[in-house]
């Protein structure tokens, strides 16, 4: 007699129940929705009322409008209604609200309360943009070099140490810092003392350059690593802010490896706009105009100590003092508008406390002089060299957009004029709000999937699974009769468990992932084939049906284990080395192997025992 202990039957029943429960949300599908949230706070009942009111004003009809998890969610019947509603809703609600496209589960609330959510769809299934960005680490180190060069000047001046010049050391990636030349050795010795106590992160080397005593201050390895890490972290923060400005629900922004950042924007229809906003490295700097120097000398290109020549946007050049009074980092808010007097585009800027204090002081001391606003744009280009290697070239464009005379002491709020168009004013305001990138980024990989392709992929994938399952079912029942039917039942159960597990883990399902599920359907039956073939053999050897069943399961187990573990090795390797969609394949394949071991062995055994276990059998339907 073949009987399972009660706890094994219970385990199978419990797994079936839990599997059914957590796979269930997937059958309800996803509804196109708008996710509306007020800027910088959770939505309240009041917001819900305002949004509903706004919908009424523009005549947008949503299927439902609710307030889960601190944001207003409006569901629509289809994508075109959702898209149409978005622009209208954004227009009526204004800039105080972020309106993002999203797909939300249509499952009933009691399922959500249990934490049952549908599988998380990858970009190739839901549509959207994937960017892989490379952060320019050399630029990050170079920026630190520039900062230190300026700091050293200030430090030496404060300490009344006379020096000849201070320049940046530009070596290879690991050798970067500042070179200071002195007139005489005692000044240098004094400088060493001061710098050592103020900047322990610098490695100081004494040497002589062009006959003058000099100091080479090199960044330590720790400092370089910190600088690079900081650049990536800072860029991630900035990118996150910018993505919020784009209005994307559930974006993914994460670091990959040393110097790369992955940005995934589900539901974005227009990659161009996303690229413009994300990749833009524009920022502003404010510097005073050097009005003492001889203009003729400037035009001759003769260097003026502490100053530099910049191009003006409307032609011509201008000499600015090197010291930067403010950078984009001090800006807390910016909005675009129209100047009431000239009618030209302007950007209204608000500063943080520290920036405002500094700005107030400098502008107060320099009334009647001119203040230049410099627009800086960093671009990186990857160029394929003659010998096939990839070279990266930084292109920095700096131009003075305006240099008005300071009329009065400027405080927290002021406006910038001299912009070309209202679009430029809007973009600049957006960039200033979101913060600037600490180092320029290059997009090294981009994948965009349109929403129509995403839906086709889902449909075709689901068809493939269903048709594959049917074909296997017909063949197996034909081949193994009663036992074949048991195996098919277990296969369906396996599919259910796999979907439940993927939903529970919220692993990303991709199109290759669906292919992995299809493959699992084909291969999972293998364990049962092994068992059934063994049972047939045992019967052929003249054993009784009950003994054959027992022996079949027992003898096949070792083989099944060996076969699955080796396949699992291949799947895990694929997971480790694979990226993006390929990973999805590795995940479904590995999970499928594990669930299929359970269903093909334990579940079929439980069913077989239930059907045949307590009966005296003369022959088996196998």
């Amino acid at each position, binding site marked *: 007699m073949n009987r399972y202990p009660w706890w094994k039957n219970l385990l199978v029943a419990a797994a079936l129940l839990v599997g059914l429960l957590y796979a269930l949300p997937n059958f309800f599908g996803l509804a196109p929705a708008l996710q509306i949230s007020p800027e910088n706070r959770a939505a309240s009942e009041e917001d819900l009322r305002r949004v509903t009111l706004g919908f009424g004003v523009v005549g947008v009809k949503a299927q439902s409008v609710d307030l889960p998890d601190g944001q207003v969610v409006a569901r629509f019947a289809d994508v075109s209604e959702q898209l149409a509603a978005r622009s209208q809703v954004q227009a009526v609600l204004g800039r105080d609200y972020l309106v993002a496209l999203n797909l939300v589960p249509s499952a009933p609330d009691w399922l959500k309360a249990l934490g049952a959510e549908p599988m998380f769809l990858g970009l190739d299934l839901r549509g959207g943009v994937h960017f892989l960005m490379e952060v320019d680490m050399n630029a990050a180190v170079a920026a630190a070099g520039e900062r230190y060069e300026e700091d050293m000047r200030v430090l030496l001046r404060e300490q009344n140490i006379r020096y000849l010049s201070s320049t940046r050391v530009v070596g290879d990636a690991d050798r970067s810092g500042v070179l200071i030349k002195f007139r005489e050795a005692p000044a240098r010795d004094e400088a060493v003392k001061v710098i050592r106590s103020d900047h322990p992160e610098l490695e100081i080397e004494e040497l002589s350059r062009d006959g003058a005593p000099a100091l080479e201050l090199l960044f330590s390895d720790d400092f370089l690593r910190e600088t690079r890490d900081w650049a990536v972290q800072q860029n991630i923060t900035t990118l996150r802010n910018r993505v919020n400005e784009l209005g994307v629900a559930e974006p993914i922004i994460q670091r990959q490896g040393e110097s790369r950042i992955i940005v995934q924007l589900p539901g974005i229809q227009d990659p161009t706009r996303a690229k413009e906003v994300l990749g833009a490295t524009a920022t502003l700097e404010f510097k005073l105009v050097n009005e003492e120097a001889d203009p003729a000398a400037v035009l001759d290109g003769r260097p003026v100590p502490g100053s530099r020549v910049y191009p003006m946007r409307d032609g011509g050049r201008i000499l600015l003092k090197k010291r930067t009074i403010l950078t984009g980092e001090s800006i807390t808010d910016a909005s675009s508008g129209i100047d009431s007097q000239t009618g030209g585009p302007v950007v209204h800027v608000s500063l943080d406390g520290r920036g405002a204090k500094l700005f107030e002081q400098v502008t107060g001391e320099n009334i009647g002089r001119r203040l230049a606003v410099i627009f800086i744009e960093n671009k990186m280009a990857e160029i394929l060299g003659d010998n096939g290697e990839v070279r990266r070239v930084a292109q920095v464009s700096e131009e003075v957009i305006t240099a008005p005379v300071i009329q009065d002491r400027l405080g927290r709020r002021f406006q910038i004029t001299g912009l070309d168009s209202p679009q430029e004013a809007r973009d600049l305001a957006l960039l200033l709000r979101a913060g600037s990138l600490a180092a320029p980024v290059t997009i090294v990989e981009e994948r*965009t999937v349109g929403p129509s392709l995403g839906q086709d992929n889902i449909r075709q994938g689901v068809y493939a699974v269903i048709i594959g399952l049917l074909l296997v079912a017909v063949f197996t029942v034909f081949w193994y009769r009663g036992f074949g039917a048991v195996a098919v039942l277990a296969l369906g159960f396996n599919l259910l468990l796999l979907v439940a597990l993927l939903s529970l883990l919220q692993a990303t399902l991709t199109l290759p992932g669906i292919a992995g599920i299809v493959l699992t359907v084909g291969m999972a039956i293998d364990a049962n084939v092994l068992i059934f073939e063994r049972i047939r053999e045992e019967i052929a050897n003249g054993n009784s049906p009950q003994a054959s069943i027992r022996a079949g399961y027992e003898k096949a187990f070792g083989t099944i284990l060996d076969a699955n573990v080796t396949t699992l090795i291949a799947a895990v390797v694929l997971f480790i*080395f694979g990226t993006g969609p390929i990973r999805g394949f590795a995940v479904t394949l590995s999970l499928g192997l594990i669930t299929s071991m359970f269903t093909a062995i334990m579940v079929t055994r439980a069913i077989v025992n239930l059907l045949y276990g307590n009966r005296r059998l003369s022959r088996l339907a196998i």
Partner: protein
Amino acid sequence: MAYRRVAMVVSALLLVGSMASLAVRGLNFGIDFTGGTLVEVRYSVPGDVGDVRNALLDGGFADATAQHFGDASDVLVRLPASDTGDLGVRVLQALRAAAAEGETVDLRREEFVGPQVGDELAEDGALAMIWALGGILVYIAFRFRWQFALGAIAALVHDTIITVGFFSVTRLPFDLTVLAALLAVIGYSLNDTIVIFDRIRETFLRRRKGTVMELIDRSLNETLSRTLVTGVTTLLVLVALLVVGGEVIRGFAIALILGVVIGTYSSLYIASPVLSMLGLTREDMLEGEKEQAVP
């Protein structure tokens, strides 16, 4: 197995042919590995791909290639490796500008892979292959004996080279999904081989009579029906995937279908004969069993 000699010749021919094709023609690598830009668009009206090519020429994309993808309203445009990721958008603009009155051009998919990333993906792919084979080698050597590990690896290398060779001969694009399929082929072929090895071990321990070759043949025959049934069920789902799974997954399905057929064949005709060629004896098995008597 009487056909063993024939099989050896067939395998040798296929291997030589595959390697010759790989050496001469190489693979038609997708942009995942070469870098480049790919744009898939859907026209509202099915049209002639020649018009698309003209539109691309007029737009200044002389080195772009265009072909139908799936059906007559979908067109796939490929551009060689470049420095910037803007090309896809510009291609779309050029196609929209050239489209007839009232005809719409929808972006289905756009991919840009920088040259550096392409190199890295290729490198990672090669590494994945090596690690997978290495990991399997160790596991089998641990669970069975070294002859089995070498036999399995011989079969896997055989399958991989012939499958890749097929992609070289047919010029089907070789991209990341095909690479994933190759690793799945390794998994499948291995599954098959292991089941047979398991039976060979068991037969060696159970039967005292017969030469090594006879015992191997006997094991193959005993597992033959299982080998074929599993092959059939796997092929059934893969054919479903090929037919209804869509264009994107086509290369994947083709690689796997081919791989399953060759993997089944190699388990029977390559992996097992290698065992006897490597001088496996019954004493080896008995000794091996003693070593792992207490697992």
